[in-house]
């Protein structure tokens, strides 16, 4: 069975500071990893994904995540956050044997302060 752990329920950070949102997964087979973001009163939106190839993946708004197989992690980072990055961030995993089903973490609320 696969699972996702997001240890930080909330991460407060000042604007222009760097941030890392942690995600660890467990799965016995090959995995595909995702970060989804939920802005207030909106649905979840795909931020970035790792399917194969380069272990470092980037989004269009400056976030990046690195797949680390040995540490079973897929942490999300941004070198300098903006107020508009305030949102809930969900890490998710799909294994090669789980069909279409995504398994999500509990989410991390990123609160960016001026």
């Amino acid at each position: 069975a696969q699972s996702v752990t997001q240890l930080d329920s909330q991460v407060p950070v000042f604007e222009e500071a760097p941030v890392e949102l942690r995600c660890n997964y467990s799965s016995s087979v090959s995995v595909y990893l995702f970060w989804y973001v939920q802005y207030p009163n909106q649905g979840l939106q795909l931020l970035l994904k790792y399917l194969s190839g380069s272990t470092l993946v980037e989004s269009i708004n400056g976030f990046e995540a690195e797949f680390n197989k040995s540490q079973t992690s897929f942490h999300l980072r941004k070198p300098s956050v903006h107020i508009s990055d305030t949102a809930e961030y969900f890490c998710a995993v799909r294994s090669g044997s789980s069909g279409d089903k995504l398994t999500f973490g509990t989410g991390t609320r990123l609160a960016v302060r001026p």
Partner: protein
Amino acid sequence: EPEVTQTPSHQVTQMGQEVILRCVPISNHLYFYWYRQILGQKVEFLVSFYNNEISEKSEIFDDQFSVERPDGSNFTLKIRSTKLEDSAMYFCASSERGGGEKLFFGSGTQLSVL
């Protein structure tokens, strides 16, 4: 940008009553999903639907739950006899391709069972 729409945004019902949650997926998408999130817990997969039939379902999705695509545009989740523990935010999602690669989520229906 096209989006998945869900109605209503909030639904309050009495225990034992039937509820129908409605979703309009993106028009050219072929794969449809329901997820839910109980307050403070993880986003959980309920069911996936493709080619007018359920392709995968979780243990949560028991006989009290059903899904339907009645008219080629709507995708509904019915709970036949609601229980207190069905209270959650229910998210509909759709994707163009299978494999859970890029799901578009609606903003959710908050179901409160009293």
